[in-house]
């Protein structure tokens, strides 16, 4: 096992713990925006799609790259925009405390 793989595994494992820790704090009321927001975040695969598309030099890689970039860009842009649209509605009109705080 080389050093780089070991580093990556470390990142992965730590991210699992951070992920569970952070996500478990998100109240039920926000679970749909959470899901659509994380949906946008996994659009980071656009990085991979760009790497393929940029270096495309054969019909196969051109097709793969074009499809991948188009789809993921839709995913990223649409994901962030729709999440913003939802969260905008959640701006409570009264300056009262959020529902989650009341539970505790």
């Amino acid at each position, binding site marked *: 096992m080389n050093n780089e793989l070991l580093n990556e595994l470390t990142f992965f494992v730590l991210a699992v713990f951070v992920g569970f820790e952070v996500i478990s704090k998100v109240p039920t009321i926000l679970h*749909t925006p959470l899901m659509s927001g994380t949906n946008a975040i996994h659009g980071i695969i656009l990085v991979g799609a760009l790497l393929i598309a940029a270096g495309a030099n054969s019909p196969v890689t051109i097709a793969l790259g074009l499809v991948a970039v188009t789809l993921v860009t839709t995913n990223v842009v649409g994901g962030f925009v729709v999440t913003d649209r939802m969260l905008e509605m*959640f701006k409570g009109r009264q300056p009262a405390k959020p529902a989650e705080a009341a539970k505790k």
Partner: protein
Amino acid sequence: MSILISLAYLLAAVLFILGLKQLSSPKGARNGNFTAALGMLIALGATLPLLHFTRAGITITAIGVLIGAVVGTFGARLVRMTAIPQMVALFNGVGGGAAALVAVAELLKFGVHPAFSEALPSVFSIVIGSVSFAGSMVAFSKLQELMTGTPITYPGQQVVNAVLAALIVGFAIAVLAIACVPFSFVSLMVLALILGVAFVLPIGGADMPVVISLLNAFTGLAVAASGFTLNNFALIVAGTLVGASGSLLTKLMSDAMGRSLGNVLFGAFGQVRTGGAAAASDGQSRSVRSASAEDLGTLLAYSQRVIIVPGYGLAVAQAQHAARELADVLEQRGVDVEYAIHPVAGRMPGHMNVLLAEANVPYEQLKEMDQVNDDFKNADVALIVGANDVVNPAARSTPGSPIYGMPILNADQAKNVIFMKRSMRPGFAGIDNDLMFGPKTVMFFGDAKDSLTKLVAAVKAA
């Protein structure tokens, strides 16, 4: 230079985590989304110096980004809030599919005998990404009602799925150990796509919250695996965060249904629900009380405290604005109104909250199950709109019932129950709801939106 790029990816990962952290309250949530989007911009910016464009490459990149940005923006602006679950399923599938395509392109570069540690994440990404893509498309079709929402089963389904899974394992081993050639990994992808379809077909529309959460986790993990292939920390962290989020929501959703994940995913294969369906038929002869809108309007208008229990039916009838209107006229008369939201109300986790937020219901009035369950006994009226199984007392009292053990809203403890329903048809679980026949219960039949509008008029007149 490469140090700077790595640092930028690290910054992006930190911003993703901070963004999700800000989602822990409705107030900071919108900023959280901006934070995450900023992280995405930084990650993409850091990637630019790594791109060595070919002539064709720059063209397709420009076309792809342009089309994607336009379609994404318009789609996200125009989609109705009731259709959010479909949209999430669609984006989720697209992300998974892209992860699989990226992995395919990577394998093409590797040659016939790639290093195991490099090829393994790609193989994982192809399988999980393809299952997520195909499964999400089926979920999308079910939610969009392009196909039936009822579970699709056929004889030998389990055998077919087992054979598919075995073939996938076989081809995965072939790619890793024998020959990494297009035939082997494209076959792998096709098989995984078929498995994705076969996997979601037998799952019913009402179980979609669980399926969407699970596929969300799948896509996250496929992206994280791509991070291993591309040696990119930002992908690993972002993908893992999504994987964690999806897994956690999957668990919450199946807990909220009082069922194990296995039962939700494979329940349609077994005979879990036949007992319930049989029990449903012998209840038809029991009588229920129904009442006119005027009577119910008076009852509501002279109550002190009303708890509205919205369910799937409200979402289907797009009656969230009508519900809000009823709450408004009641509040003008000094009635205390709250909404009791069951965790699986709506079509995806937290969907009902979004729908009610769209109708300008302040989030302070939206109460989670644990917060509100003790309040029902002090409520004059529990108004059930399009919900059924989540208020079925059988979940507490009848050990043989398919929903026994599912946490429910204690609507039966209210002094009066108004049960708004389209017909006497049982809910998704296919069982009778004793609450409908209870002495305190009045049925009010009709489309949720029409019925609520009638009640608004009746309350105004009372």
